[in-house]
């Protein structure tokens, strides 16, 4: 596995743990369908939250949030629709969040959470 994929996995794991600590119930991780993948899906109160996690080891090539483009958000929105179709009992209220993880080698990772980014 390439180092970047490893970093991504680690970031997603950190983000999931972070959400769990903030009282969210994790519904799915790396949910896949024909159109792509959703990193994390959690239940925050009554809201189903689709979370895009972006991890970088440094900000030399920009902040992780800057890498979340409009096209990526649009895909996430479509994927959210696909998930709701697959799970009709859930997903009455949905929300799309983004979490950035900056995880330099050998230092404490920093997480930032943005709600309702779409």
């Amino acid at each position: 596995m390439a180092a970047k994929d490893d970093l991504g996995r680690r970031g997603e794991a950190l983000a999931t743990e972070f959400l769990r600590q903030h009282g969210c119930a994790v519904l799915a991780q790396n949910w896949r369908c024909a159109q792509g993948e959703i990193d994390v899906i959690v239940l925050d109160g009554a809201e189903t939250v689709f979370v895009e996690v972006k991890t970088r080891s440094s900000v030399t090539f920009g902040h992780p949030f800057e890498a979340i483009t409009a096209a990526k958000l649009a895909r996430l929105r479509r994927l959210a629709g696909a998930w709701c179709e697959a799970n009709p009992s859930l997903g009455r209220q949905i929300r799309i969040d983004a979490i950035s993880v900056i995880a330099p080698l050998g230092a404490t990772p920093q997480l930032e959470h943005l709600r309702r980014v779409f």
Partner: protein
Amino acid sequence: MPLGRTSSVALIGLTGSMVEIEADISNNLPSFVLIGLPDTALNEARDRVRAAATNSGCGLPNRKLTVNLSPAALPKHGSGFDLAIALAVLAAAGNVNGESVAGVVHLGELGLDGRLRPINGILPAVLAASRFGARTVMVPTGNADEASLVPGIRVVGVASLLDAAIWHGGRYSPVVVEPITRPAVGGTAEPFEESDLGDVIGNADAVEAMQVAAAGGHHVFLLGPPGSGKTMLASRLPGLLPDLESHAALEVSSIRSLAGQPVGSSLVTRPPLEAPHHTATAAAIIGGGSSHIRPGAAARAAHGVLFLDEAPEFPTSVLDALRQPLESGVITIHRANAVAHFPGQFQLVLAANPCPCGQYGARDSECVCPPNQRRRYLARISGPLLDRIDIQLRVTRITATELRMAPESVRLSTAAARKRVIQARAASRDRLKDSPFLLNGQVSGSWLRGPRLRLGPSTTSAIDRALERGGLTMRGYDRVLRLAWSISDLAGTSQPSAEQLGQALYLRKAISL
């Protein structure tokens, strides 16, 4: 509250309006939204500001930034808002003191390296800020000299965005950068400056006429064959005019600043001369542009001389576009989204050949133009325009005898002539102090014929007769009176004599063939 605000100035023509710049940071993915009717150059400010802030070490927050320029309906253009936008965002982020940023007017364009570039139109912008009650204005170092010309406002010149942020209480470590300055003043700015009236040989009545024109602010039309010295005479007129008064100097400097010409560290004190080529369009002469309205040659010649050489070669529409500024002294340009006003009190000097071959009326050669063509050539200068020109003079080539006699003849230097003009203007100002007029060239006929200044019938008999015979219209009669007063002022007499009226009649009517 993640909100920062500051102010800047939007210019339409020479008129500035205050623009309030608000920046909001919202918890959302990084993006930069600029609203409030920006044009393309201003919309690009988003990329300039982000790059400049990052490269100068005071990076913007990775959140959604919304910057609003209000009043939202006022069209804004150019790159002069960059500094204000950057500081409003930094204030919203809490990196600099918000109160300090809100109390200062910011002007300046950012380079990608975070240094500030000088912008055009600083002088009118700072002037507007001062009129609207601003006490401190922050400008690029390269513009600081120009901004300091405005009295009663504190000017802070900064070299970079980092310097500006530190000035506003940002906790950054200063970095010394080389400030961006304007290229030095070009040597070709005043090509006619050195020419002296003493160089003109012969044409004594034309030399006198130029002084009359300078004394009374009369417009001039010079007609003569090629090589008779029309251009030479016209280029000497600005030298005869007195130094600009403070109000006029400020306006001339403002126009220069707006047109992107160097202003330097002192106001322009000499009247400008503009001599556009006859291929110029109406927009080049009057001013124009669709979104950003720029001053034309006529506005740049305000309080100075607009010289149109080969006047019949100008398109008729261009010449007639000058009628409105000649009448009102203000150049008004209407566009779909704005109306711009520029000062338009210039002195018009037209020069023309008498016919396409140029030889008609010359003593030493023969004209080959058919009469019809000759008539049509001068008819390109429309009657209404010509009617507004007080002095219409024929100039002739000098003869070999005149050239030989030249060293012995006494000729007036520009300095001596200007002294005469200043005295004449003082006399006319004294007389006109109770009237709305400033110069003889602006005085209305009814005022001149009024009880205070009415001349005796024995004095005016010559022009009275010309009026009776139909050689002079009523309007022409008034023009002759104005000229006579200027001639009298120049001669230092208290009121025009019959002889001076005759001279005025000659200056007005010498062209009629």
